[in-house]
């Protein structure tokens, strides 16, 4: 029996390559539109020094979003990042000021602590099987508590030179934190798109059982994702302390939602397995643009949040309506 096998596949599909990328087009477009509107409305918005301010804000939100994306891609969630920022900010200052360690050592130890928190999260999720939401919620509470306990509410003043220069130096008038963020983006992109381990992260998020049966060490990948997330958060903590020049336990309250929002708006799927660095970065840019624009356009503080909500709603809904044409008829 020599029969031509399958019917030829449906020819209409040029979707493939662009299908996922389409998600990012939405955010990128929104960023362009919002930027143009704000820049036209107030000339100072696109000025160098405001761009620098936004660059520093972006470094904070963006780095956090980037880290959280790793976890979300594996199908988990990390609610602890805001609190880890606070803890690491305070902890690095404490090590530097109260324990008298050199700046660089203090910073390094804070990052190591962040990584350790990530390891704990990863093991709790993989070995104990505690759901990611619960695991990181416990840290959300406990890490904030630790930051508070470490300071008894009193900011830690007197951090060293290295801290302050991180916040103040500029290279070609780009602030150092912004450069760090860009570097992190490139690294993350290389890892996720150009290494086997990165691809395996997607596999774990897309279908953990399939990944396991294919011989992928799923637990290690998951632990890695949590380590990346917590370490990014710890780095942001150091950046914030450097910027404030004091260790403040009340920083970054609620930033976990900002970070997750940036990731999700940038096309990272909460179900896992989907998302790209480009989208995450632009998701963060969008949030920073809007937040900054509301201030610079003198929107009344009582109305800023309504406006922020409305802009987000418009961005998200147009994005969906645009996307719907592409994948109609799936339900």
């Amino acid at each position, binding site marked *: *029996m020599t*029969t*031509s*096998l*399958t*019917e*030829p*596949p*449906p020819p209409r*599909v040029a*979707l*493939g*390559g662009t*299908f996922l990328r389409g998600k990012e087009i939405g955010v990128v477009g929104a960023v362009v539109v919002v930027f143009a509107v704000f820049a036209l409305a107030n000339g100072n918005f696109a000025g160098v020094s405001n761009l620098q301010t936004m660059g520093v804000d972006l470094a904070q939100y963006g780095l956090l979003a980037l880290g959280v994306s790793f976890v979300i891609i594996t199908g988990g969630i990390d609610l602890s990042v805001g609190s880890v920022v606070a803890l690491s900010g305070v902890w690095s200052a404490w090590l530097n000021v109260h324990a008298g360690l050199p700046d660089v050592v203090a910073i390094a130890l804070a990052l190591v602590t962040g990584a350790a928190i990530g390891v704990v999260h990863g093991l709790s999720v993989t070995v104990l099987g505690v759901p990611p939401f619960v695991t990181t919620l416990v840290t959300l509470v406990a890490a904030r508590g630790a930051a508070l306990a470490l300071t008894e509410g009193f900011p830690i003043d007197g951090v060293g030179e290295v801290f302050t220069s991180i916040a103040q130096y500029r290279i070609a008038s780009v602030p150092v934190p912004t450069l760090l963020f860009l570097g992190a983006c490139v690294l993350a992109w290389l890892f996720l*798109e*150009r*290494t*086997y*381990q*990165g*691809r*395996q992260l*997607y*596999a774990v998020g*897309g*279908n953990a*059982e*399939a*990944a*396991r*049966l*294919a*011989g*992928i*060490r799923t637990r290690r990948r998951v632990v890695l994702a949590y380590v990346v997330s917590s370490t990014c958060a710890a780095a942001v903590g150091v950046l914030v302390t450097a910027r404030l020049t004091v260790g403040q336990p009340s920083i970054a309250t609620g930033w976990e939602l900002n970070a997750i929002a940036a990731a999700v708006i940038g096309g990272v*799927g909460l179900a896992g*397995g*989907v998302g790209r660095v480009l989208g995450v970065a632009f998701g963060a840019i969008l949030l920073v643009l809007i937040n900054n624009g509301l201030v610079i356009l003198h929107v009344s503080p009582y109305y800023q949040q309504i406006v922020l909500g409305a802009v987000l709603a418009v961005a998200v809904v147009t994005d969906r309506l645009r996307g719907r044409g592409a994948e109609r*008829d799936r339900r």
Partner: protein
Amino acid sequence: MTALVEATGLRKTYGTVEVLRVDRLSLAAGQVVALLGENGAGKSTLVRVLTGATAADAGRVDLAGRELRNGDPAHAQELGVATVSQEFPLVGEMSTAENLMLGRRAGSGRVVFDRRATERAAAEVLGLIGADVLLDQPVSRLSVAQQQLVEIAKALGRDPRVLVLDEPTSALGPVESRRVLRVARDLAAQGRAVIFIGHRLDEVREIADRVLVMRNGRLVADLSPEEATTGAMIRAMAGDEAEVLVEGDPPRPGAGSVLTVRGLEAAGIGPLDLDVGRGEILGVAGLMGSGRSRLVHALMGAARTTGGTMTLAGQPYAPRHPADAVRAGVGLVPEDRKRQSLLPVAPVRWNISLAALPRLARRSWLDPRAERTFTEDVRKSVKVRCATQEQPIGTLSGGNQQRAVFGRWFATEPRLLLLDEPTRGVDVGAKAEIYHLVESFAARGTAVVIASSELEELMRLAHRTAVLARGRLVTTIPRSGYSKHALMTAANSEGAAP
């Protein structure tokens, strides 16, 4: 002959149920060993233990002379095992190419992912079974059959010394199945060991060098090809008391029409006309992707129709949602159990009573006791083998899950029953039982539309068979005109000119 797979003292229990008790098992190189058994006999559990997918409670497995680390599939792979799982685990959002190379590295680099090399390797792997699937599409957009082909290619691509095929052809049509079987034979001829699990006994007879039969988690028979007659295999599977008869004729259809379809059009199908009468069983045949599934979905209101009219029992019938169809007395057993049928973590009871709930309830209120009795009756009538109704259905064997889905629709006593690959993964005994059930429904006047890749199934059950090609109706063959050749020829025709 060298033993590639050696297992001793394997035990596995879930809860308090012992599902695996195999004291000794030894598989030689160069053989295709078929593993048979009823649904839930423990076949998948056995091979999952052998391949490290599940950790055994006790026992030892040696692969090519080295002991397997219990429950470590990565180690099993190192030792040269590849598996085609029953529920093909693929990463839906990833491209076909990456799925095919999942957990492996193409190209020279060990760290840096080489997309081009991956796609090249993937294309090669697909070539092993001559499948034709777009490489850069997310795998979730493929049909079940295509996914199964991908899963098979994925395993073959690992160039395994031991290949495990757990119902590899359940979603495939005859042509594709044949090709898969041939590949398996070739591998055995090259000195590999192949374990083949299947419910189609003709396939087993065609391929096996040795037949192992399982019952209640134990190996109960070890037959040579000569001993393995259909009767012997069935007896070994079901125990001595069983006498399964798959052959027979459907009851005569009654008078009067239930469903008439005129000029139906939906994405990729039609326009087409159909008539199904009271008590009539209409088969739908076609190649992979010919539009059988979309036809039944359109009839169910689950896919948007773009043209045409339908009447059901004389009334105009234009379902815009499956709920409309259910209310009008239509039921659908979809082809993809995992994606389209099961609530995997919910109890068996919920899964069975799901579609019948509104009619079971009195003014919205459910009486738990009534529901339990009702479910118990249905469960018994379709013979779902489970510890209790409260067990999550995801823990049942594949065939038992399928029976439960059947039960769900039988319970609604439909006027028109749509079946899409209804006996996929169902054992011979249960298959006969399901045929019997379908026939008894037809006998009571229910119209049945059955889309299937198994020609034997259509020839056994259907009064008439409509053959689709490229979404169009090519011809309708009456029972008297049945032959595999006739059906295949029609399915391979180009379809009606547009």
